[in-house]
């Protein structure tokens, strides 16, 4: 009956590979690093897609939330917990970082969603700058020099698990009744209210969830690099995430997975070009946007991510 029996199997197999390949040295450290960045970027992209793609708002300060998650989790592993506890408390630490980011998201969302339209872009832009300045001016956590001393707690398997959690959570949220309310806000906010969607509350919730996962990504990032500084989380980082969202296509989780993977790997492949990769990469992007303005997936979703009833509905139409 269940036509998706293979899906958990593949996911479990990939999980095994994510442990075994690095363990037996089949993947060298460099490739592992790239894979981890791909995963972290997937988390960032899917979470931003929730706000910018599914909900149709325009948030441009995702790196700010990432910074909060990165700093909170790093402070916890370096100052609060003994080093030997590291691997055991790591999930907890990440979640605390995510919750910190979510709280910041709530504070940003609360006033922003009283108004409509472009205000969110301005507020999130300002937020991103404020976070960076605040971090630069707290001498206790390194100020502009940054913060270090974290163990390398992030590995391919952990990133993989968090990517799965992100996909699972946001996919189920989007296809829930509540999540349908998010789509209705994107389509027509007035009409959304007229089908009894509490638009303000829905927007705030989506924004908080999005911020939470940005915080998780920040925590993972900090424990790959083992060094963070405020300059890692500027508006440039936010722009990278925006690019990955629109490259992959709005309103599509598969799109975000593709967008994040392609963009991250592409910039890695272009590394030999030195500074010129910042010309070639964006240029490719311009070409893609001209030829395919809705991104790679463009509002469509991969079949394996759709709920079973929708797949059946599709089948009914085509038959």
């Amino acid at each position, binding site marked *: 009956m269940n036509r998706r029996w293979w899906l958990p199997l593949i996911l479990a197999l990939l999980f095994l590979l994510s442990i075994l390949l690095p363990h037996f040295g089949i993947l060298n450290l460099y490739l592992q690093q790239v894979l981890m960045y791909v995963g972290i970027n997937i988390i960032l992209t899917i979470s931003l897609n929730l706000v910018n793609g599914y909900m149709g708002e325009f948030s441009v300060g995702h790196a700010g939330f990432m910074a909060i998650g990165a700093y909170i989790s790093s402070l916890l592993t370096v100052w609060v917990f003994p080093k030997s506890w590291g691997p055991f408390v790591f999930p907890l630490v990440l979640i605390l970082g995510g919750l910190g980011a979510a709280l910041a998201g709530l504070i940003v969302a609360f006033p922003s969603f009283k108004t409509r339209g472009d205000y969110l872009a301005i507020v999130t832009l300002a937020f991103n700058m404020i976070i960076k300045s605040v971090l630069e001016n707290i001498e206790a956590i390194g100020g502009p020099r940054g913060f270090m001393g974290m163990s390398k707690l992030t590995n391919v398997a952990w990133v993989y698990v968090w990517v799965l959690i992100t996909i699972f959570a946001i996919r189920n949220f989007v296809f829930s*009744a509540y999540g*349908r*309310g998010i*789509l*209705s806000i994107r*389509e*027509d906010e*007035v*009409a*959304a*209210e*007229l*089908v*009894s*969607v*509490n*638009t303000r509350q829905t927007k705030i919730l989506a924004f908080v969830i999005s911020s939470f996962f940005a915080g998780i990504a920040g925590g993972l990032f900090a424990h790959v690099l083992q060094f963070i500084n405020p300059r890692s989380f500027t508006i440039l980082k936010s722009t990278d995430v925006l690019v990955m969202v629109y490259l992959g296509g709005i309103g599509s989780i598969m799109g975000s997975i593709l967008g994040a993977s392609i963009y991250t790997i592409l910039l890695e492949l272009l590394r030999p070009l030195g500074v010129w990769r910042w010309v070639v990469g964006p240029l490719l992007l311009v070409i893609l946007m001209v030829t395919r303005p809705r991104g790679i997936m463009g*509002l469509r979703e991969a079949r394996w991510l759709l709920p079973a009833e929708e797949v059946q*509905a*599709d089948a*009914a*139409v085509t038959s």
Partner: protein
Amino acid sequence: MMTPDAPLLSVQDLVVSYGNIKALRGISFEVHEGEIVTLIGANGAGKSTTLRAISGLIPIEDGRIIFDGKDLRAYPPHRIVELGISHAPEGRGIFGTLTVMENLKLATYARRDKDEIQKDYRRVFDLFPRLEERKNQIAGTLSGGEQQMLAVGRALMTRGRLMLLDEPSMGLAPILVQEIFRVLQEINQAGTTILLVEQNAHMALQVASRGYVLETGSITVQGTTQALTKDPKVKEAYLGG
């Protein structure tokens, strides 16, 4: 509790402004259970503004709106829908990139009565067979008439006791206008009270039992539709002599 004779909807001295411009200058009217009441008037008379104020989409400056004994000023838009006011807005407001079925499903957002929802889908599809044929089509690709059907169908799915309709005839071919109005009468006969806003006074006065004429934010004429169709002023201004 409301008394048996109390109107379902009572608008009292409603004033609404957009900045310095007064869109409604203290209008009062009533809609009783089971009626079709129409608000007719030219562009900019304040018809849509009235409906938007009832649904809570714009702030009220002065006056009261009482629905089923409750002062609506205390409720946000999504709660007003749950109290039992459905609204098919001006320009239809359909969710363009979603399918017809998803549009209808969204209208059941706040409802928990699963069995009744299934019955209501059936009812919408019986009223508008065209929507059933196209239920998996993206709503933005429907024709204007079909989109209007969808807007009415979606309003039906929220299952209000009072349905607010904002210019359902706008931009439609005459035959489709006939069709929509026929369905509105059916919906009314099945027990839904309707407040209909129209520029097409001719059609509106045919289906309604009472009407109000709105001119630059004030009600100038009111009465039964028979009286309105005979009124020389209404005849000249809205029915083409």
